């Protein structure tokens, strides 16, 4: 009887679930969502809407905040607001694509591992465990040493580094679902592995995997910003927020806006994503249940 109730609650329509979740969102959660939406919009529409492109220098170097330059100017006299908004494309965009790749690959491999036999499962798990034995920054440094740094390499690097994490998460969830009665029923009906993976298991792990996606997105943003800060990430003249901090680090001694603005941009994005995840009501319930 209990299994029937459980599987029923698993299959609640996704839309109602989301509406219920949003209703429980705290004030901080909404504020964080607004911040994320702002940076997403900046990444997508920002460059097209800028009247003053950041490419042209020649103004005053390291100018303070003013009406003309809201965030001041950088080490070449470029408008800092424009630089930060252009940087959003790299920081938010590259991190989003990498996380999508990592999470997607991880989830697919996990579904495959859970739905097919022991042999595939243990091979995949062992192979991906090897990758986790290399610290993430170390792996990124190795790739840059071997292949040089470019945006496609960075996307692939971040994706490879975070596949094992999301695989492990998705596999733990998928193995539980795989043991439920309705999956057994589907197999008994004669459905193939692909059907079981995508139609039976995937919809039921999608919610937790979205929270995991957010968390991994933060890790990727931190990794990419750190690599750029070391000068090994996005290469000039393009700049993400990590490079912007690096470029303007010399104004740090004067507390210049040019180094503070990109720092605040990074912090606001990562803290906002963390807050949104913490405010998902399902998460608190899951943590209680997991103990």
């Amino acid at each position, binding site marked *: 009887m209990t299994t029937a109730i459980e599987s029923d609650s698993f299959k609640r329509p996704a839309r109602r679930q989301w509406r219920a979740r949003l209703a429980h969102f705290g004030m901080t959660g909404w504020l964080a969502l607004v911040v994320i939406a702002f940076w997403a919009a900046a990444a997508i529409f920002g460059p097209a809407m800028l009247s003053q492109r950041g490419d042209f220098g020649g103004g005053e170097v390291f100018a303070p905040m003013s009406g003309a330059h809201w965030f001041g100017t950088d080490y070449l006299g470029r408008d800092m607001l424009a630089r930060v908004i252009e940087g959003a494309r790299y920081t938010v965009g590259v991190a989003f694509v990498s996380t999508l790749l990592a999470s997607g690959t991880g989830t697919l491999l996990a579904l495959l591992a859970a739905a097919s036999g022991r042999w595939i499962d243990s091979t995949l798990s062992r192979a991906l465990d090897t990758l986790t*034995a290399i*610290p993430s920054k170390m792996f990124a440094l190795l790739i840059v*040493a*071997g292949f040089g740094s470019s945006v496609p390499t960075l996307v692939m690097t971040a994706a490879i580094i975070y596949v094992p994490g999301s695989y492990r998460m998705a596999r733990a969830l998928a193995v539980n679902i795989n043991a439920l009665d309705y999956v057994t029923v589907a197999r008994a009906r004669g459905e193939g592995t692909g059907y079981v993976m995508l139609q039976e298991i995937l919809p039921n792990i999608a919610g937790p995997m979205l929270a995991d996606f957010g968390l991994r997105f933060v890790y990727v943003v931190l990794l990419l910003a750190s690599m750029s800060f070391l000068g090994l990430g996005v290469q000039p003249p393009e700049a993400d927020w990590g490079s912007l901090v690096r470029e303007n*680090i010399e104004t740090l001694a004067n507390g210049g806006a040019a*180094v503070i603005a990109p*720092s605040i941009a990074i912090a606001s994005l990562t803290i906002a994503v963390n807050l949104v995840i913490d405010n998902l009501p399902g998460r608190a319930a899951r943590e209680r249940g997991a*103990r």
Partner: protein
Amino acid sequence: MNALLFKLLVQRIGLAVLSLLAVSVVVFAVTGILPGDAAQEQLGQEATPEALAALRAQMGLDMPAHQRYLHWLSGLVRGDLGTSSVTQLPVSELIASRLPNSLLLAAVTALFSVPIALTLGISAAVWRGSWFDRAASTGAVAVVSVPEFLVATLAVLVFAVQLRWLPALSYLSSIDSFGQLLRAFAMPVLTLTCVIVAQMMRMTRAAVIDQLEAPYIEMVQLKGASPLRTVLAHALPNAVGPIANAVALSLSYLLGGVIIVETIFNYPGIAKLMVDGVTQRDIPLVQACAMLFCAGYLTLVTAADLCGIVANPRLRHR
């Protein structure tokens, strides 16, 4: 020590050695095999075929990939790390000159961060839900969710620029007195400590809360034990395993943090050496540093695992 425990420990250590071997394959493949012909890259497009062949022979590139790997691995095991392709000095010499600095930095950081983190984590767990817990936890989340270089930048802004207490860069060469040593170390240690304390505090808090919410603690409270006794005599001994696990795991974050911190403060350690190696594409140097870091990382992670096993009373008393 019983047979089962011993078997588990040996198994974990064996697994770590196997992982390190797998890591060496990945490291060599990513830097030595997949990127293509290093000789071609060094000489450029206009190189004569004879010069190319000569350089390939000199670099050992005329051997098949698996032979090159075995050659490299056996050198690594014997302590022969090869020659830096930029400075032409033996890599082991370069590393030997930098490694003590990094170990000193790590040791000083651990010395500061472990007591602070444990005190904060345990107090936050005991007074969970209080303003202190909320302030400490929020602070920890904030530190964990921003990059290390931001923490470092903020530290420079506050302590070197505003308060003018400390120099923004560390130069180990100009150290004559203990005071100077302290000043040179202060910023890197402060930054690393912030990052590590945040990680360790969160894990410690979770581990202790896990114990405090167990049924046996309720029993202890019903018996009339004082809150202090409940925590110190009953909860903590059971939480030692998870806490030791948390400490070792958090210290493994040091390895990531140290890369940023040594670069930003210009600290002459091994991470700075590796980042410079990556910038100059000095592959033998990068490979050796990477193996060193991964070995350190695996040691800490395995130590965390072993602490968890040894402290598990169900495994210890059988």
